[in-house]
């Protein structure tokens, strides 16, 4: 499964409680849509650290990195590229 698919499934099942792919656009803001609250953000970080073997630093806890499927995918790919180097 691709990074995007993995992330999408995680968000759909745990925050939207569905497997209906049509209700989540990759660019949707989690915060603006009320999908994810402050506890939820921790869960997202926890999940991507465990699943993709990366470490999210405090100064990376930014909406630009975490607030949509697209942001998360780009962020994870950047982090994995650094680890690979």
């Amino acid at each position, binding site marked *: 499964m691709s990074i995007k698919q993995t992330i999408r499934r995680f968000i759909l099942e745990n925050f939207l*409680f*569905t497997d209906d792919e049509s209700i989540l656009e990759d660019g949707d803001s989690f915060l603006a849509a009320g999908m994810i609250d*402050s506890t939820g953000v921790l869960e997202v970080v*926890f999940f991507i650290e465990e699943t993709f073997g990366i470490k999210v630093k405090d100064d990376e806890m930014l909406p630009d990195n975490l*607030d949509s499927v697209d942001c998360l995918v780009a962020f994870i790919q950047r982090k994995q590229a650094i680890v690979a180097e």
Partner: protein
Amino acid sequence: MCGVAGIAALSTRTRISEPDVRRMLPALRHRGPDDSGVYLDPHGRIGLGHTRLSIIDLAGGVQPMANEDRTIWVSFNGEIFNYIELREILLKAGHRFSTHSDTEVIVHAYEQYGDDFVQHLNGQFAIALWDTNRQRLLLVRDRVGILPLFYTRQGERLLFASEIKALLPLLPEAPRISPAALDQIFTFWAPRSPNTLFEGIFEISPGHRLVLENGQVLESVYWDWRFPEQGDYLIGSDAELTEQLYELLADATRIRLRADVPVGAYLSGGLDSSALVALIRRHSTAPLKTFSIGFEDKSLDESAYQQQLVDHLGVEHRRVFCHNRDVAEDFPATVFHAETAILRTAPTPMRHLSGLVRASGYKVVLTGEGADEALGGYDLFKEAKIRQFWARHPKSEWRPLLLKALYPYLETTGAQAKTYLRNFYGIGLDNPHQPGFSHLTRWFTTAQCKVFFSPELTAALREDAVTRLTEQLPPAFGRWHPFNRAQYLEAKTLLGSYLLCSQGDRMLMANSVEGRFPFLDHRVIEFANRLPPRLKMRALNEKFLLKRAMAAHLPRQILERHKQPYRAPDIPAFFSARPPAYVDDLLGEEKLKRYGYFSAKKVGFLLNKARRGSSITYKDNMALVGVLSTQLCHHHFIERFSQTICDIGTPSHQFAQG
């Protein structure tokens, strides 16, 4: 306290039969285990039933009770705390009394004052009064909703009772769960009065009375929470108003210690119950026993604060210890008593607590509910104040940071946290004058649980619960101070519809224990409502005047402690170990699909999350408990309708798999 039941004819063709009235009483036996009685009108126009828990005038207070010439009959649940003073006045006016009970005061007060007799009562009550001369039934409930009274129309008859379960034996078929009520519960945490969970079954709203005369039912409001409209608040120095508040609270407490049985008190460790226990100690010489809940989950446990106060005041104290598994195992019985879906398990430990009171030989407890509503204690009021302040300058970066003072765990550094603050707490910031502004964060978060509704349930919803509520607010609402508006919404959505019933009366009465609420004495509320808001919340210091009034009588740690809301374990109670079998059964695909309220697939994902147990959010807790309690209501009152009616009132009535 007691149970009230009855049937009234809505047409001249209808005759009420005594056996029908008697069929209602077994379901109310827990409310009044000491005695029961029925009055049947000679013309069959009405039957009044009563089950009694004897507290005042143990020998003379049998009900239904009549006046001197037996033309006025009353069945009454509750207490009239000023009955001694009222009796004096009525004696002087020429009324003759044959008992010393507070019930008889109601009968004579009605003769003296007509329907306005209720304005003379200081107490908590649900009253059914039959005037034989005028062939007229009056149903009336106390001002804030301490005691319940439900009714439904069934053909040519009006059925009424203290609990919904007493109406069931006379219904031709099981009631239906109302989609609109579920919408309200999954928004406000409770159905909006007069609605109940069930279609066609209503409650008499707090402060309302209902008159049935010539086949017509007329409802009117005799009391409501009211606030100054033109800044005409009470005038006086802080010291004078502090003194007045103290005197009122002392008197409200004093008259609630009137009983022919010993009186205990609940002690949570918070300011309100501590203030109450201190007041009792100062104004009564009787030995006082206090009762509290301890929790296995240390984050919910307040035992240390309770002990501090017990030591300070020298009271005899007992504690019931609440394990997670008790909450899970006893939840079905809680829902049976509450007769509604609930989003919190918190009522269950309250039922354990009243069980401890009863087992200790007590029938009456004083308790601190109402102080937060009347005197301004809730975090939600602070949050609304901060959001109001922020709305004046919505671009401000630092105004929302005040929320940190309120929720210390809230992360406010970093762009992620700032965006969260803005998105969540910033709701409605563009229009801080809208009627529900203070409660939007709570209602919005709760309403997200509606994602679990099945497509059929969602399709059955006709109107938006919040819009409907704001349309029904009193005309003066918009002229009240924002702080007072928040108080009103809290009193109308949560106090009467959840705290005093699902978590209050029903959990007390399940063990035949009567609660008494000095902070809800209407004199206290009316005084508090006229206090300037700055005396309720000074900056972000809640219940400012109450703290001043009690400063000399309580330890500083109690006065300065940050308020801890009463909570019980929700998801962890069910899933920290293997859940009881009924949970898997009722939340399984088959029952979810058959009952039809929730999407089996979505609940399945929620269950996976609950079993995994990590990062359970506030919303997840509410959703799971809400879904489970709705399923339980369907199970108890619809699927097992006939069986429940047969089982009701039998001592062993317990949850059974069906």
